[in-house]
């Protein structure tokens, strides 16, 4: 009897396992492709001239020469053109139905993952520049903004299929002029929002984190009483506060801070806050004065996500230098280049190209928009380079992607072609009116 039971149990669990495996492979299933005769910029390894890349189920299966594909596999003839990993933008605001919940200086309860707009045409614009993944964020209007989301730009797919669940969950912070609202005209009858200074911003973060600490303690006390032998009759759970829940998650290490900051002192202050409260910082955003505090950043293991050379557009960017990204890279800091824009996003490869002028090698420059970005988002085991076993997020360029004369020809995500310049031009010539990306 028991043996029989055990046997049926085993069969059931086995069949469940098989079902699970089947469904898992079905979930993972991407496209099959063979890209032939490309100049492969692997980013993490050496450049492979005249190489082939075989993609099965959306994953890179084989890299080498004279690879043959299973019958029926789509073959893309690269003719020596340049194949690089899909570009990753670590800071943008595209594909969202909103940017700022600007009515309060503290809004960590809002989640950008819930307002993804897969119909945003900026997705297609980004694809046309070889971008396959974005870290799309809450704006910088608030000292503590919302939780951000990492997306793959699968144009035409439903919003939930864009979200990259493996990426770090991040919470947006912001310091300086934007949160002080120092560039706003104060309207008559409306009070200035707190904080109006950098000291205020710092104090506000400390206050909120102390409240979150209290919140954790209150819940812990409740859980303990509930578990005790004779819980008091009047025991009532504390009020669930979504704002403090998010901050508690930051303190528990379940969320990682991404902090918009410009000047050196505010970054140092934020590093101190992170030490004081024990939360993790993923990267500083914009960080124009990072070159002044490389030792501190390196010691803390905090990277930066920056523009390449568009400094001095406001007071706090006045001491920005175009050597920032290159210099910080040389000092051993993890640097990525971002667009922060639905337009600049399509020419991030140009931005990386400029880094060569400021002192980086071509390999180092390419890393700024690929593997470094992947590391900052916690997805470097999945994407960011052309390696066997990684997801086939690829971009094919007419010339070297760092050349000023290059053009993105094709953008591939998990083996599926989402942008094909040649096919698109043909289609456009044929169609009298474009309908958009959906049928």
């Amino acid at each position, binding site marked *: 009897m028991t043996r029989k039971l055990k046997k049926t149990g085993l069969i059931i669990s086995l069949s469940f396992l098989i079902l699970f495996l089947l469904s898992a492979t079905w979930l993972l299933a991407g496209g099959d492709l063979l890209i032939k005769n490309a100049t492969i910029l692997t980013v993490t390894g050496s450049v492979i001239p005249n190489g082939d890349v075989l993609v099965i189920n959306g994953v890179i299966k084989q890299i080498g020469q004279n690879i043959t594909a299973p019958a029926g596999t789509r073959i893309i003839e690269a003719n020596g053109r340049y194949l690089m990993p899909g570009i990753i933008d670590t800071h943008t605001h595209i594909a969202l139905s909103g940017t700022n919940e600007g*009515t309060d200086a503290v809004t960590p309860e*809002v*989640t950008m993952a819930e307002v993804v707009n897969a119909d945003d045409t900026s997705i297609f614009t980004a694809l046309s520049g070889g971008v396959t993944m974005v870290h799309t964020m809450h704006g910088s209007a608030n000292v503590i903004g919302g939780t951000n989301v990492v997306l793959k730009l699968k144009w035409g797919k439903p919003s939930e299929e864009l979200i990259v669940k493996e990426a770090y969950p991040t919470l947006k912070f912001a310091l300086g002029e934007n949160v002080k609202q120092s560039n706003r005209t104060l*309207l008559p009858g409306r009070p200035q929002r707190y904080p109006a200074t950098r000291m205020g911003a710092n104090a506000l973060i400390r206050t909120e984190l102390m409240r979150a600490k209290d919140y954790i303690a209150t819940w812990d006390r409740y859980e303990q009483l509930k578990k005790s032998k004779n819980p008091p009759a009047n025991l009532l759970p504390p009020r669930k506060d979504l704002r403090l829940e998010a901050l508690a998650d930051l303190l528990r290490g379940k969320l990682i801070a991404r902090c918009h900051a410009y000047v050196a002192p505010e970054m140092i202050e934020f590093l101190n806050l992170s030490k004081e409260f024990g939360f993790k910082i993923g990267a500083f955003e914009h960080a124009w004065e990072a070159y002044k505090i490389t030792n501190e950043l390196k010691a803390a293991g905090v990277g930066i996500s920056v523009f390449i050379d568009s400094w001095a557009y406001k007071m706090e960017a006045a001491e920005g230098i175009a050597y920032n990204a290159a210099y910080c890279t040389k000092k051993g800091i993890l640097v990525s280049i971002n667009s922060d824009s639905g337009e600049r996003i399509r020419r991030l490869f140009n931005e990386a190209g400029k880094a060569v002028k400021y002192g980086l090698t071509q390999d180092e420059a390419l890393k700024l928009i690929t593997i470094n970005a992947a590391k900052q988002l916690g997805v470097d085991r999945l994407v960011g380079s052309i390696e066997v076993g990684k997801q086939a997020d690829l971009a094919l360029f007419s010339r070297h992607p760092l050349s000023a004369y290059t053009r993105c020809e094709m953008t591939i995500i998990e083996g599926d072609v989402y942008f094909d310049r040649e096919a698109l031009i043909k289609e456009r010539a044929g169609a009298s009116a474009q309908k*958009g*990306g959906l049928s």
Partner: protein
Amino acid sequence: MNKSLKKRQPVFIRALAPTLLGLVLIASLFFPLSARAGSPEVKPAYALVNCRIFPVAQPVIEKGTILIRDGLIEAVGPAGKIQIPEDAELIEASGLNAYPGLISAHTNLFLEIKEQAQPATPEDYMAAFSQPAEPKEFPWLQIVEKIKPKKQTVETYHRIGITTVVVAPHEGIFQGQSVVLNLNSDQIHKMVLAQPWALHINFATERGVYPSSPMGTLAFLRQKFYDTQHYSQHLQKYRQSPHFLKRPEYDPFLEALLPFVIDKKPIVFQCNNLEEIKRALKIIKEFKLNAVLTGCNEAWRASQQLKSASIPLLVTLDFRPPASSVYAQQGQAIREKAEKEIYPANTSNLVKEKMNFSLTSFGLNDTDFVKNLRAAIKAGLPTDQALRSLTIEPARTLGLEKQLGSLEPGKIANLILTKGELFDEKTKIVKVMVDGTLFSYEEKGQ
């Protein structure tokens, strides 16, 4: 002192005299009315004979009779099988089709909606924005108290076959509570069928106050739902024993939400685009709400999710693509093409997925409702499904399937008589009966 009082008294009386006289006059005017209301009203019995009957719940009766008494349907059947009582007023309806009265389960009928003036000059702009912002959240609002029925509007709706409407509030996120009305007169107390019906929620944003963004609205909704749960828990505990328990602070906002969040009365989520449908489904699941979705002109894009959630849908016949749509982002030509060719097929796509839904006139005036209904049918919505979606389906969603939605004995006598089949281009509605009250719309010379 005394002197002055004496002097004043006549003035006082003089001033009051016309008012008193007026009051007496008004009272005398009202007296016969109130006397009439006091006595039991005798409602006539009607017999509609020789009409083609589309009962919705049963197959079509080619030549039949409908008996109506006291505002209710007494009998429905083929001619000859139903005995016509002596006291019934005979209505010869040969050549006419009889249908249940149509139901639009989401309207803003009879509400005075003020268009917000857009600031034109920089000064206006400054003035508008320097106003202290006020949130427009009224979960306690009973829209029935704001309704001013107009005879003309009632007749306009009769002419397009609608005899029952849900009137819903229209401002804010927690908009307030709706009412179901029978369009039988212009007297609100006679019209009410269900009050309140549901709490209405829209994924709107506030201007200048929290929440001002779509993600803020979601957080705000969730926080209010969590707060209501906590409030209810606290109240319950306090009621059990107030000993050593601080009393819960009275909160009118949460009080208004209790029947819906805790007692699971219906909540209607307005979903203006695909993403809002998904957001609503997520929240409904999280808080186990008894919900209905309205708007939904992109429902076909979420048909799989909607199917597995099996939540009643009130689908508007408004075909304008939402602002978030790709068709709205690429210029007027594409937007108009989508409005003509893509969005009218929403309902026929739902039919292909074997989904049930109700149709509404939400966001449309009477002529656009009729025009768009025909466009939906032209785009593949079968007419029998269209009829069900405007009768029995909304009746079920409203919890009024025992009273409304089909021509069956015992139900409310809401019906329409048409010359021609209901959804045909040239069809005219000639008679409408609501709660047994007959309205005639035959044009002269017919």
